[in-house]
């Protein structure tokens, strides 16, 4: 049995999903062209359930790309049972989606999640009444505490075997007549598997996707436009507004029937929330929170890194005792050890605290508040507050950062935000900044480099906006209540993100390190270095040996630093490179070519042509900035 979790964004679908899919089952990501939903198999009492976690969707009229993907899945008819996950504290609004889901005529279960938050807001819900209205099972859950999860499967089974198809709630008579009128004339071969009523209602609402699809039936199309005009004339409002008001009125009626709203408990949370988005204090708090996270990440990372790296250095030094120095085996072992230690010693100590910090910020709900605070600033670079989210995620890794641009409504915003995102120093580049600038020049220089980076991104944003003028409506975003992150969820998310690094990036690091070692053995490295010498040596003024490390940096940015030690044959770079060279090298690494993973994400989100454009831009930027840095610092240092 295939069950799909459908609900509005932030209703707790994924928390429910993780709660029942657990650690035991294999979760698979299906990164199709744009689809990004998670499927998992769970066996309960001899029955296997395939559960699908879809991106949140406010309505079946999709607004952004992620919502469109969810809608496609729902309409594909693959799900045997729909679990409509509702944030009980926003019940009145959430029921609007429920009404639309009834039109799909698939067995359904209504799951009222976060019932504790609803109670805190003073909302009491009568489950029996709700269940009677729609004719489907209704359950209560508190997903983050694991309460009520066991009932999901039993009620899904009940809905499936008893074929509990939700009851359609009727609009006013005149609108129902119009819906019937259209239902009757829908060509039989048009989307035959989708209920006629759903199509009729969506067409009355002027759904963009469906309108494109029916353009092949010109007569039908003109009839629909006729009916829409009739509604506009009789109601004095656009047909889509009329339908939406009808739905709104219906949900308000249902809400009043099933829920009692008492006095909300004003809590400490509201006070903290008020402070976080305060027009004066919000900004220094934002600065301290971000700065605090970077500081903690840096300190913890350094604390773990140093003893680990020392251990590995010792092993590498002892290597000639076991394998003949200079032999092929020696080079392979050396590469293997260096790659292994690069992942374990340099990347992971910084990644773990960073992922924990990011997850906590996400789970508390601070990111949307940042978007609110930064809206005005983002307008300066032709974007709006929501673009802050991909940027912040990009500080962890550009790949999810680029993917997060899906939350933006217009293709223009997605393009500009994705372009700017790839210049955000990800965790990999952070290790380069700390490992080279932080270690050899100082913490302030490293911090300065971050500020310089933000400055450049803002200038680039302003320039891009000049070329692609603003047409976006601006920020429209729900700000969810502050929540206390649970230990389990933070642990799980950090683990999932870390697993990604360990399974994909780390092996790549080890393999590249071995390849570099082999190149060295066959003396091919000199040839490659000479090839890049005009750029590396003449233009950037870097030692010739760095050419090959920059080449490897395209795979993973931290490779260029890890390999730098290997290529320069030292553990103390300050003996072989000047401060200016270190700065130029780091700046070049930050800005040039997005790594392979990011390029893959860009191709998926924007297409090959735009990816090529962005890549070319990044190389130009890296060259210009590095040359400028070289010139300016030669004067001052």
């Amino acid at each position: 049995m295939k069950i799909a979790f459908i609900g509005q964004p932030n209703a707790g679908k994924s928390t429910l999903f993780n709660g029942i899919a657990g650690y035991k089952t294999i979760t698979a990501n299906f990164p199709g062209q744009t689809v990004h939903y998670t499927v998992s198999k769970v066996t309960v009492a001899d029955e296997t359930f395939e559960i699908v976690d879809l991106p949140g969707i406010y309505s079946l009229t999709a607004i952004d790309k992620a919502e469109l993907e969810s809608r496609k899945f729902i309409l594909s008819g693959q799900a045997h049972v729909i679990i409509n996950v509702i944030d009980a504290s926003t019940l009145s609004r959430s029921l609007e989606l429920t009404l639309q889901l009834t039109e799909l005529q698939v067995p359904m279960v209504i799951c009222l999640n976060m019932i504790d938050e609803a109670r805190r807001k003073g909302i009491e819900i009568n489950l029996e009444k709700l269940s009677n209205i729609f004719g489907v099972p209704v359950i209560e859950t508190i997903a983050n505490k694991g309460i009520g999860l066991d009932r999901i499967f039993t009620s899904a089974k009940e809905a499936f075997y008893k074929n509990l198809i939700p009851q359609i709630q009727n609009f006013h008579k005149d609108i129902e007549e119009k819906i019937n009128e259209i239902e009757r004339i829908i060509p039989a071969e048009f989307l035959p598997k989708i209920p006629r009523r759903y199509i009729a209602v969506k067409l009355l609402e002027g759904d963009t996707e469906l309108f494109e699809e029916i353009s092949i039936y010109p007569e039908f199309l003109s009839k629909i436009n006729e009916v829409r005009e009739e509604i506009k004339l009789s109601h004095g409002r656009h047909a889509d507004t009329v339908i939406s008001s009808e739905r709104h009125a219906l949900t308000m009626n249902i809400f009043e029937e099933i829920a009692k709203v008492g006095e909300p408990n004003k809590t400490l949370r509201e006070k903290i929330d008020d402070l976080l988005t305060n027009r004066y204090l919000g900004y220094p708090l934002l600065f301290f929170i971000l700065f605090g996270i970077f500081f903690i990440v840096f300190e913890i990372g350094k604390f773990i890194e140093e003893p680990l790296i020392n251990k590995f250095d010792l092993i590498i030094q002892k290597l000639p005792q076991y394998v003949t120095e200079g032999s092929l085996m020696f080079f392979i072992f050396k590469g293997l050890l260096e790659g292994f230690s690069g992942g374990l010693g340099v990347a992971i100590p910084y990644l773990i605290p960073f992922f924990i910090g990011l997850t906590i910020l996400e789970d508390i709900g601070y990111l949307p508040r940042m978007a609110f605070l930064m809206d005005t600033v983002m307008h300066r670079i032709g974007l709006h507050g929501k673009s802050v989210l991909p940027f912040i995620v990009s500080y962890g890794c550009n790949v999810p950062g680029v993917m997060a641009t899906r939350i933006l409504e217009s293709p223009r915003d997605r393009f500009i935000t994705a372009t700017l995102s790839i210049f955000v120093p990800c965790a990999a580049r952070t290790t380069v900044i700390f490992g080279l600038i932080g270690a050899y020049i100082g913490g302030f220089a490293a911090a300065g480099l971050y500020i310089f980076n933000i400055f450049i991104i803002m200038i680039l944003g302003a320039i891009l906006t000049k070329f692609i003028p603003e047409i976006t409506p601006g920020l429209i975003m729900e700000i969810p209540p502050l929540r206390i992150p649970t230990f389990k969820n933070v642990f799980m998310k950090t683990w999932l993100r870390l697993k990604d690094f360990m399974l994909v990036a780390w092996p790549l690091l080890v393999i590249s390190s071995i390849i570099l070692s082999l190149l060295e053995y066959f003396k091919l490295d000199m040839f490659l270095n000479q090839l890049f010498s005009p750029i590396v040596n003449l233009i950037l003024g870097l030692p010739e040996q760095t050419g090959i490390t920059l080449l490897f940096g395209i795979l993973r940015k931290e490779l260029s630093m890890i390999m730098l030690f290997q290529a320069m044959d030292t553990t103390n770079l300050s003996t072989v490179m000047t401060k200016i060279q270190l700065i130029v090298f780091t700046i070049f690494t930050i800005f040039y070519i997005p790594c392979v993973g990011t390029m893959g994400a860009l191709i998926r989100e924007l297409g090959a042509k735009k990816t090529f454009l962005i890549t070319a831009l990044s190389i130009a930027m890296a060259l210009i900035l590095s040359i400028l840095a070289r010139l300016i610092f030669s004067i001052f240092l």
Partner: protein
Amino acid sequence: MKTLMNIDNGKKVKILKISGGKSIRQHLQCLGIHIGDIVTLKKSSFLGGPVLLEVNGYDVALGKGVASKIEVEEVE
């Protein structure tokens, strides 16, 4: 005509008109903001920044572009 941009903090307002295209209207409807609804302005615009609304017990942020397209009247 007053829009959401010129209302003080903490005031309750009734939404009279939403100008702008279909996409804005639909987006606002999805978030539960309809003509005739009564909402509370939790944080008013500061230096042309966004506003924060409370709609039926949850918060929605609107940038100035959108907020200036929503005509409202103060209610008590």
